């Protein structure tokens, strides 16, 4: 994980990117690529799809840098675009995200036992998230992995705050049941 960029440097890179500086935009991508891919992966559970959607999210960000408001969080903005891109991908794939059986859980022959257990737990967590409906999953991902406020989630998904709260309550209730043994 790269160290967080100081605000001033990030603001400069954004301004340079706005003027068409690809190298500056590349530095911003390097900074947020892992987080964005991770967020999209939580939405669709498919590595290829997640990376495609993340790439699309960065392309959208590049094309719409003018609409980014200075002084707000670039990270949150990118995450919102990424979740948007992931939902688009899911719609194109008719809401059939990858079967987790196809996800490489672990290299069981070579990995140590601890790593194997960790990977199995990761697969269970991802499977539980995947069992949620897309609207509930989007709210959960924006809250848990993007750390957006309820207000920001409501604005991103164009839903009332009350709906954000009820979806989050429901999603967490389901996950507590599904992941009971890991808690």
């Amino acid at each position, binding site marked *: 994980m*790269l160290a967080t960029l100081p605000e001033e440097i990030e603001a400069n890179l954004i301004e340079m990117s*706005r*003027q*068409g500086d*690809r190298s500056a*935009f*590349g530095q911003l*991508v*390097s900074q947020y*690529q*892992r987080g964005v*891919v*991770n967020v999209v*992966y*939580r939405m669709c559970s498919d*590595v290829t799809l997640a*990376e495609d959607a*993340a*790439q699309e999210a*960065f392309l959208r960000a*590049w094309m719409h840098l*003018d*609409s*980014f408001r200075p002084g707000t969080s670039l990270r949150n*903005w990118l995450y*919102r*675009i990424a*979740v*948007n891109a992931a*939902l688009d991908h899911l719609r194109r794939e008719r809401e059939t995200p990858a079967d*987790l059986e196809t*996800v*490489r*859980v672990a290299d069981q022959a070579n990995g140590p036992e601890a790593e194997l257990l*960790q*990977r199995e*737990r*990761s*697969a269970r*967590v991802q499977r539980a*998230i995947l069992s949620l409906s*897309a*609207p509930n999953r*989007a709210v959960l991902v924006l*809250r*848990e*992995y993007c750390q957006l*406020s*309820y207000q920001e989630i409501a*604005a*991103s*998904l*164009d839903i009332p705050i009350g709906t954000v709260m009820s979806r*989050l*309550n429901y999603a*967490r209730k389901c*996950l507590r049941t599904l*992941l009971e043994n*890991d*808690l």
Partner: protein
Amino acid sequence: MTEHASEWLNAYLDGELGGLRQRQVEQHLERCAACRAELEALRGLSALLRETPPAAEFTPTGRFVTNLMLSLPRHPDASQPRKAASLGWWLAPAGLLGAWFFLRTVLTLTGVFTAADATGLLKQANAWFTGGQPTGVFTAADATGLLKQANAWFTGGQPQAAWFVAITSLFGSQMSAAQQSTLSLFNQVSVFGGDLFSGFLWQAAIVLLYWVWLAAWWFRHAPRPMKIIF
């Protein structure tokens, strides 16, 4: 608050409660072991979700960035259609100003010819134009049609207001020289006032159109929130 605070625990955990509701939940948690346990379970779930790494291996950052850079399109600001559209937006008020200057120039030149007529200069110019070989500025004026209008003004006399024409045609023969002179003065004031009002209207229209253009420009470039719609 009901027997348990379950419905508020998620918002409490996320720091989304405030004021009275937060104090009520805190007071409830102090005396309710079940809700404290539920809150801890929610906290544990959040930690599990955030701390568990994804069960997948992603493309290394360096390679991802390289691939992205290769597929990065030209920046929209540098793209030709947008640049052309932007140029059009900037040319619109410039064109409007050009049209305004042209009209003002025509009106001013007309005024100059009228004044020249009043001082007798145009008589000589008219003679040159109709009788001899037109040269210099008169050739240009003739090409734009200005001289013809000036000539017509010269032969037709001073510009007259409609009311002045009506009064002189009805009562002109009964008026004394002093009355005609006063009426003529009022006619000139009326014509001058009309020109002034016309000029003011033009400038007001230009200002109004410029404001409309600025509003349209702002509307096109105002940042809009990006929304995710299911």
